[in-house]
């Protein structure tokens, strides 16, 4: 944090303290009322306590809100992807109607569909564009966006690789970027860059990107209001940024599941080299994003490290070493990684418990939470994992009962945030209330 003097000399713990202070003080935020400010501080304190493995007043709760506000307001995902005003209004309506929550965030993960269309984005399908109008999610389009023999390009000059090899494949409008020359050999002679801009296809790619940029301006102006309004009303954001595991980035974005599986046998050393190469980049990127955020928590959705995808041996060889470096890199900067282990992480518990105390928050999907509490919970906070089936189809009583059990298992001694196993998009708002009620009723520390 540039605002803090002597940042370089601080220990990771001191840096975390500084970031907690900022989260708590929310510099620049003018709260709606003294009550809102009081609530805000109480909520942030609750999360900080959980991270620090302290008990505090009660178990904090992260509601699995997802795209629910869109449906709650009578819209659907497609509508709010195309109509930014409806998006904003739906989120604000949900916030105002719901009342007490420990955190509430803006709908940042809903991409502006008009911009996606302008650039002819190929990596996702979304409602009305590749998947049905009424689908409540987008679909990632996995593929071999980089070829088996292209690891070295990524390793040698990552940004060049991204600009001239990867980007042209991820969106139609970026395709002409493949015709750019490699800029680095011309370093210091800016006029050489310009020769590429005489190329009409590149000019038109830039124009298209600027047109999509207009859309982003509109979108962020309107939806940015949600985050500001939520803060002022006393709802802190839990997450201040997003990051992930280098192996997932190589798999999800670059090689695809099929490709990476082959590589694990045919060219294992390239995977490791590439993961090592992007590790410091991933850390830098997360740190940079966090500079502009209030919350120091970095959510990290994890994909390909789960039990069904790879063996424990492969996890230890390909997945964990670089991911561990990323985690330690973030911790070293005073950030709090919040890995979201999608799928089954039961066999990984011993491996991942090797982390500094009170520095990370593990969020589990499919998990034996008692075991997680026993192994990971000794040193770090955990969160999870009410099955989404109960959230979406159960009664409020079912939800409350599930939460009670989770709290009894995970809450003792602190270090637990109540949440579901994934987000709920459609369902009964009473089930969200039931979860919040459970935290207040069963989660109080004495």
């Amino acid at each position: 944090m540039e605002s803090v003097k002597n940042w370089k000399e601080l220990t990771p713990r001191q840096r975390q303290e500084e970031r907690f202070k900022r989260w708590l003080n929310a510099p620049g935020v003018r709260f709606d009322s003294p009550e809102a400010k009081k609530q805000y501080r109480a909520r942030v304190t609750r999360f900080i306590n959980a991270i620090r493995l302290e008990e505090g007043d009660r178990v904090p709760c992260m509601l699995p809100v997802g795209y629910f506000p869109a449906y709650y307001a009578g819209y659907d995902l497609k509508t709010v992807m195309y109509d930014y005003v409806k998006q904003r209004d739906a989120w604000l309506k949900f916030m105002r109607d719901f009342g007490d929550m420990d955190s509430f965030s803006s709908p940042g993960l809903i991409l502006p569909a008009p911009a996606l269309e302008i650039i002819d984005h190929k990596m996702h399908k979304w409602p009305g564009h590749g998947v049905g109008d009424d689908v409540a999610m987008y679909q990632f389009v996995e593929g071999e966006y980089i070829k088996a023999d292209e690891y070295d390009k990524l390793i040698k000059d990552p940004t060049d690789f991204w600009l001239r090899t990867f980007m042209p494949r991820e969106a139609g409008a970026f395709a002409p970027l493949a015709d750019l020359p490699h800029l680095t050999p011309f370093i210091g002679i800016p006029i050489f860059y310009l020769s590429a801009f005489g190329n009409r296809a590149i000019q038109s790619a830039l124009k298209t990107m600027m047109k999509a940029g207009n859309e982003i301006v509109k979108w962020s102006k309107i939806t940015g209001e949600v985050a500001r309004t939520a803060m002022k009303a006393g709802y802190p954001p839990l997450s201040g940024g997003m990051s992930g595991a280098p192996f997932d980035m190589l798999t999800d974005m670059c090689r695809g599941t099929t490709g990476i599986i082959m590589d694990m046998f045919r060219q294992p050393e390239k995977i490791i080299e590439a993961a090592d190469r992007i590790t410091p980049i991933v850390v830098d990127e997360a740190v940079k994003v966090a500079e502009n955020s209030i919350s120091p928590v970095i959510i990290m959705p994890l994909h390909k490290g789960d039990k069904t995808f790879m063996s424990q041996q492969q996890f230890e060889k390909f997945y964990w070493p670089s991911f561990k470096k990323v985690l330690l890199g973030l911790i070293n900067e005073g950030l709090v990684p919040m890995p979201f282990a999608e799928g089954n992480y039961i066999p990984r518990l011993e491996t991942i418990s090797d982390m500094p105390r009170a520095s990370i928050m593990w969020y589990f999907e499919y998990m034996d939470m008692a075991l997680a509490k026993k192994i990971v919970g000794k040193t770090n906070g955990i969160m999870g994992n009410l099955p989404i089936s109960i959230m979406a189809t159960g009664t409020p009583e079912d939800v409350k009962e599930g939460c009670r059990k989770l709290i009894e298992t995970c809450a003792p001694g602190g270090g637990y945030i109540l949440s579901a196993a994934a987000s709920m998009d459609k369902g009964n708002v009473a089930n969200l209330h039931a979860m919040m009620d459970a935290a207040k009723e069963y989660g109080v520390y004495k």
Partner: protein
Amino acid sequence: MARAKENAMKKWEEMTWQEKREERFKRWLSPKNVKFVSREAEKLYKARVTRFIKAIKMEEPDRVPCILPMGYFPAYYAGVTFRTIMYDYAELKRSWLKFIHDFKDADSVNGPALVMPGRILDGLDIKNMKWPGHGLGEEAWYYQFIEGEYMKADEYDRLIRDPSDYTFRVNLPRTAGIFASFDKLPPLRSLQGNRLGLVPALADPDIRRAFQKMIDLGKEYQKWQAVVTEVSQTALAEGLPNMRGGMAGAPFDTLADMLRGTQGISVDMFRQPEKIIAYVEAITPQMIEQTIQMADNLDCPVISMPLHKGDDVFMSDKQFGKFYWPTYRKMLLAMINEGLVPFPFAEGKYNNRLKQITDMPKSGVVWYFDQTDMKEAKRILGNVSCIVGNVPSSIIVTGTKQLVKESCRKLIEDCGPGGGYILSGGAGIDKCPPENLRAMMEAVEEYGRYK
């Protein structure tokens, strides 16, 4: 090499470097897109290229070939300033065409690609150069590079870790005003997140302005490019080949000239030598790849390589052997192996380097010397490389025609025997009596015939 690769009988990868070079020479001899003005022009073109090829291969051609040190002389010759041809493309064209017309018996002519378009330099707001009317007097006849520590001593790791990221977000804002806002760009290699690429960055008004300006300047660049291409094609059509296909440089110079500056690099050679080596080693394969890619689009396989910081006065032999030569040698070998002809221009003095640079395949490189002792060059390097040079600019600019001719005669006597020599000036000439250039052509005709 697209076209040679198609025509070749053998697979490109299986050819020796000499075979690859022969394919490239064939393409140079019969350029596809040139419409010669006459049979005679075509015949002359082929005779001239053949002369150069023989010299490169260290054989005796019909006579010693000559590369006139024409520099920006065409502007002077046409009665306009250098600034005029930088800004006025019509005048650029007129002066070059006049030169082509009046020096028809030259062995080669350079196109005007090195006359940078002034409006584009202005538009980019280039910070590391001065030019006439922009930091230099209106009458100045050259650009002045402004050396500086454009890269700080502690930035090596960042540069090595992701070179293009460094280029975009650190170097560009420091070297051109138009890119000042690029220090606000997010890293382009986004491994995470919304997959909108550069688009969100374009929501920033400053970055948008930079992109809009690039598009506008791109159009201006096209105009300039069209004139340069037209003039270069005219020279070829008139039968005047080009002896410089493309341009490249030495890895160490990129670092020393463009990034760290003389002072910075001198300190680094003592304080952090391993960082210098790590960087030049990292950049070398990229420079090789870029050079070969560029050359594949060219008819002429000769790649001009101006060299700066490896000369006798800048570093010791030991430093040259440690910092400069290993990666530069690698680059030369890679180019040779692709059938290209590296044409290093050793600015300054290379007397102490002559022995070291003999470590190359025979006839692989053509060495062009500025102030090096040519007799010594012939003695030490003459068995390995064709050499080029070096009538002193002082004589060409201020001397008489007789003096120029005399200097040429001496050079031809020292360096001509056995072939492998091309007569030229020690540097490009901007202003001189026109007959002094003609004297060089007369000298090769009179003294340079092989029997």
